[in-house]
């Protein structure tokens, strides 16, 4: 399927504002996270979503509260759009006790049971069978929820991906598998790691519906996602979406933005298709957005992000006893 480019400009200004708000929130949050990392408030690995905001924003607002979302370690953006509070995410990044995972998980392991955000996983491809497990459980209970599974394009070459999609196709599990193809698996371009350039076509191998999507166009993402979610919800059928996007930053905070495995020229070329700018342009052209409104939105978002920072900074680190907590649950009876 060719990528669709029809923008949804049917005058739904409120929806568009909501989408813009989601994307700007992710952008500003991630910029603040980068600042915090540089100041030593965040340690270890930290993978930013900058440039990919349209993917999460195009898909997640379509879901119900009782649907499940699972993703990789590049999870901050998806966590925010799914409804996790910026405070609890920032506090988790800072490793504080008020973080969503009580400071025990960190950047790669954001979890929130309240919004069915199922993590934040560190092993490439490892969470994909788990997503199939959600699909299995939904069907087991005869429900109509949907599981959405985000992954990078490098996971597609992985054994776990193959096993999970095979079972999802075989057993007809209600899962939407979303490949966020940002062209690079860490430092390796997809052309050097994948035997096919069209990853979505691998869905054919699993007798699974599949599509290619322009990931910088939030409307295109939304349209493709709506179809996939509907398919899963009504007929227990899985879909494989390849969403082509780009990250404007390095793989993680320890990775150079450009100059190692990609050129500055390439980066600048892609930045011309900043998804936020694309949406702003569309909204402006439709008269849905003016400078004042944008400034107001930016100011409000800045305040929220600063508040998240302050909250995180004020939260204490977990106490020593927390070291031994939550290794096992107490057994109710024996």
């Amino acid at each position, binding site marked *: 399927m060719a990528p669709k480019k029809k923008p949804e400009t049917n005058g739904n200004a409120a929806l568009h504002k909501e989408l813009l708000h989601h994307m700007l929130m992710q952008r500003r949050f991630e910029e603040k996270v980068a600042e915090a990392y540089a100041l030593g408030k965040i340690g270890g690995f930290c993978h930013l979503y900058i440039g990919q905001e349209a993917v999460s924003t195009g898909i997640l607002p379509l879901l119900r509260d009782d649907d499940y979302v699972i993703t990789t370690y590049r999870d901050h953006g998806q966590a925010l759009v799914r409804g996790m509070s910026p405070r609890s995410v920032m506090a988790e990044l800072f490793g504080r006790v008020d973080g969503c995972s009580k400071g*025990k998980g960190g950047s790669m392991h954001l979890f929130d049971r309240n919004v069915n955000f199922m993590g934040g996983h560190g092993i490439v491809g490892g969470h994909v069978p788990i997503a199939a497990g959600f699909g299995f459980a939904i069907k087991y209970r005869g429900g109509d929820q949907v599981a959405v599974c985000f992954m990078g394009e490098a996971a597609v070459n992985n054994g776990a991906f193959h096993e999970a999609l095979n079972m999802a196709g075989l057993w007809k599990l209600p899962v939407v598998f979303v490949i966020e193809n940002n062209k690079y698996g860490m430092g390796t371009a997809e052309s050097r790691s994948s035997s096919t350039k069209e990853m979505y076509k691998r869905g054919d191998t699993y007798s699974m519906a599949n599509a290619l999507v322009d990931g910088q166009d939030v409307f295109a993402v939304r349209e493709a996602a709506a179809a996939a979610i509907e398919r899963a919800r009504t007929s227990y059928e899985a879909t494989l979406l390849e969403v082509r996007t780009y990250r404007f930053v390095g793989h993680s905070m320890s990775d150079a933005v450009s100059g190692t495995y990609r050129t500055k020229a390439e980066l600048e070329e892609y930045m011309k298709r900043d998804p936020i700018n694309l949406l702003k342009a569309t909204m402006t052209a439709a008269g849905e957005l003016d400078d004042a409104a944008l400034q107001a939105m930016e100011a409000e978002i800045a305040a929220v992000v600063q508040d998240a920072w302050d909250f995180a900074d004020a939260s204490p680190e977990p106490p020593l006893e927390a070291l031994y907590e939550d290794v096992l649950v107490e057994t109710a009876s024996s």
Partner: protein
Amino acid sequence: MPVITYRDALNQALREEMHNDDRVFLMGEEVGQYNGAYKVSKGLLEEFGEQRVVDTPITELGFAGVGVGAAMVGLRPVIEFMTWNFALLALDQVVNAAAKMLYMSGGQFPMPIVFRGPNGAALQLSAQHSQAWESWLAHIPGLKVVAPGTPYDAKGLLKSSIRDGNPIVFLEGEMLYNTKGEVPEEPYLIPLGKADLKREGSDCSIITSGKMVLVAMNAADQLAKEGIKVDVVDLRTIRPMDTEAIYASVRKTNRAVVVEEGWEICGIGAQVVDFIQRDCFDALDAPVLRVHQADVPMPYAKAIEKAAKPDVPKTIAAVKKVMYLEA
């Protein structure tokens, strides 16, 4: 009291738990239509249907992950590995996902999942099909590791494992499935983390688990004929280990031999010895000895395979050595 096989004891446990709790399901290769590679799940597909007894493709990593996902959203999977040799492929799901989920989510997502299957050697199955993995898995915080050696223990422990609420590694044995023992008809549970003193004597402690319980008991019988009476401490649960039971025995006998199926280096016996030397140092009249598999991949040929395995004569020799008796 009925005398049934270890296999049937497990079958009963599965059946009872699946009746008790709709959330419990069995998933693995050949568990359904084939009635189980070792017939442990015989008749279950017929009784509970396809949704609850699920045949999988040969994809250990994949279906272990499906189990993890299902457990995360509140079901209670029992994931069968045809043997634990193959489970090596699923280790990412068992160790990186199941064992860690509760901790790294700050307590939000418990993992009520049982990974079960036969562990260790059978007869002439050669190197890739004869490995005893307990020490790999016992190393991991966030898991419990259970190894029943008798039908009675198998049933009670499997039921408790399914109810436990934590990720459990449940180690059975091909050579155990046909063994017989008394098993009550009424449902019963055996607590995890509690050893069982299967034989009493004050001359020496034999500490063991799983398949090796039979070896230890036979050795105990033979030693008794020579007037040597040993304690046989069946650990039943490897992690967490019932250290109090070990200490009580060693303090009484002043000497110990561990009989284990795995290899020497960093095997569970090494952990038992560490516990003993820390707590019972002054009670020891001799170093603690271990009887374990020879430090080689398992060979195919009959005689050398036998020579590689722990057995009754090696156990007896070790007991006599720690008693300073002539062999």
